[in-house]
């Protein structure tokens, strides 16, 4: 059987309509493609898109280790590679600027805001899906709508609110406002996960005399761990990525997060600033990329799960 298939693949004429295998053929028929054809319709465009998608990161990493004299002189030194990398820019960044503090601020704010959001979302999602109190469906819809409210139409009134509550220029301004972006998303995601847990398990526990809290912590949460990880990672990434609130609510350099600090405090008039700027961008992205590398599947399921519901 395999032989005949291979023969058919080798000789397109024997197959009914061998030239049809366009880019949308899925696994069922892809054996019909010949290698040269796949090269042109598949590998070439894919390679091109990948190069465009990854080039900025390559350029970022390369710039951050290039010595000063190679940084701007493309004609003497090849711009696409360097044979004598230097850690000067990274050293300058870590020891001559407040970068470690910014990194710590970002980590602190992201962790606290994520933890707070996950706690609130677990309770809310469980109540909406399983307690089904009066009006739960409407609340579920309202939470989805809250997800669609973008930060860029909220930051002006929110800045006055933050000021009124006395939170301006403290990390709490961010820890308390980030959940407004995170809670709707993670509640929506966790609702999807909780729905897949069989009712019967909870009914058994209820008959055995468990309270709702016990059911949540001892039955539902252990079964929803993949969902919790997805929600956690996605929330953490969103926090790390957030810019406009951090830019508006924090004014002292000491409390800034990495994205804001790089733009406001690291950009100076130096011609060679690009080295340390790129090093800052690279180091600021690394924690997320590492986290992502370990949890790719959870990340993808978070992204698609929230969209599919």
């Amino acid at each position, binding site marked *: 059987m395999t032989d005949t298939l291979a023969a058919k693949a080798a000789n397109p004429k024997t197959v009914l309509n061998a030239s*049809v295998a*366009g*880019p*949308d*053929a*899925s696994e*069922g*028929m*892809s054996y019909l493609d010949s290698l040269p054809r796949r090269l042109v319709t*598949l590998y070439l*465009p*894919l390679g091109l*898109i990948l190069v465009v*998608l*990854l080039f*900025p990161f390559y350029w*970022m990493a390369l710039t951050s280790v290039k010595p000063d004299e190679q940084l701007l002189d*493309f004609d003497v030194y090849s*711009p696409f590679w360097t044979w004598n990398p230097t850690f000067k820019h990274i050293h300058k960044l870590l020891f001559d600027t407040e970068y470690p503090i910014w990194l710590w601020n970002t980590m602190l704010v992201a962790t606290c805001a994520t933890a707070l959001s996950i706690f*609130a979302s677990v*309770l*809310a999602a469980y*109540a909406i899906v399983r*307690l089904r*109190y009066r009006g*739960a469906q409407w609340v579920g819809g309202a939470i989805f709508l*809250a997800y669609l*409210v*973008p930060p*860029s*139409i*909220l930051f*002006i*009134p929110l*800045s*006055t*609110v933050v000021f009124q509550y006395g939170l301006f220029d403290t990390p709490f301004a961010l820890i*308390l406002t980030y*959940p*407004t972006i995170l809670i709707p998303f993670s509640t929506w995601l966790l609702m999807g996960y909780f729905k897949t847990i069989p009712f019967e398990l909870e009914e058994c526990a209820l008959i055995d005399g468990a*309270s709702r809290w016990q059911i949540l912590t001892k039955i539902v949460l252990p079964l929803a761990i993949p969902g919790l990880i997805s929600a956690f990672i996605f929330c953490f990434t969103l926090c790390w*990525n957030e*810019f*406009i609130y951090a830019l*508006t609510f924090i004014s002292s350099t000491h409390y800034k997060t*990495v*994205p804001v600090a*790089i*733009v406001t405090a690291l950009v100076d008039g130096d011609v060679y600033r690009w080295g340390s*700027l*790129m090093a*800052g961008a*690279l180091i600021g*992205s690394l924690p*997320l990329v590492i986290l*992502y590398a370990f949890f*790719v599947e959870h990340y*993808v399921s978070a*992204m698609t799960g929230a*969209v599919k519901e």
Partner: protein
Amino acid sequence: MQGSNLMTDVALKSRLDKRPIQEPTSWDRLKVNKNWLGLWFMLPAGAILMLFLAYPLGLGVWLSFTDAKIGRAGEFVGLENYEWLGGDSTFLLSVFNTLLYTTVASVIKFAVGLYLALLLNERLPFKAILRAVVLIPFIVPTVLSAIAFWWIYDAQFSIISWSLKQMGLIETNIDFLGDVWNARWSTIFANIWRGVPFVAITLLAGLQTVSPSLYEAATIDGATPWQRFRFITYPLLTPIIAVVMTFSVLFTFTDFQLIWVMTRGGPVNATHLMATLSYQRAIIGGSLGEGAAISTAMIPFLLAAIMVSWFGLQRRKWQQGGDND
């Protein structure tokens, strides 16, 4: 014999020890009342969303009807802010920029994203790794990749200008962010670059649920690749396309980070989006009322975009195995 006696004793004892059945008190009833429990379970999320989302949203609309400045509560001035904005050429330019930015970026993101998803859905070596790599631009914080683009678009030392000069395609450096239309296309490109992975990976998740046997059947019936895409892939994908594009349009329309890092709205306001203009007027310029009016003016556009993609591409019954609607 003795064993069974013991067992009956134990059984009886425990029966006798049991407390008399109590009428459940109203507290006991309340403890299992789902509305009462629901209230407590919703409290943390509800409090945060009320205090920091619903209240500011209302406050924003109210501020847009006042002449509030930073540090001074405003007075109600009716529609004055909006009337003023209606005659403000910078604001009208920012509306034009925002519409251009959103339309062009969303259309290209959709096209390239769908194409990339179709490519990734093919039989490929290292498929999982490829998919993981494609998503990286979406993981890295926007500001940090925007800074990389800022460097790539540098007026003097742009690697793109240099490469094109080496290839002999251009004579002088391209001024990516200094020229009005160049700046617009450059920022749109950066936005597309960042948005494509999201569209591609979510559409790929949708594509993977389409059964290969449908394509086989269509091929046997003599369908061309385009027909297979048009009559199998596209209809089965519309629900997910609708949601993905709603999100994509929403986030592109309200984009702030990319523009703020790369151009701050310049040159001569050519890349100001409504979000960046509202930041400039409200936080830097101090006129909260006017900034709030610009933000509030975004809401109708957003609602329209959501409506179009939501109702225009709504889930059809036959897509879930029901009758044709």
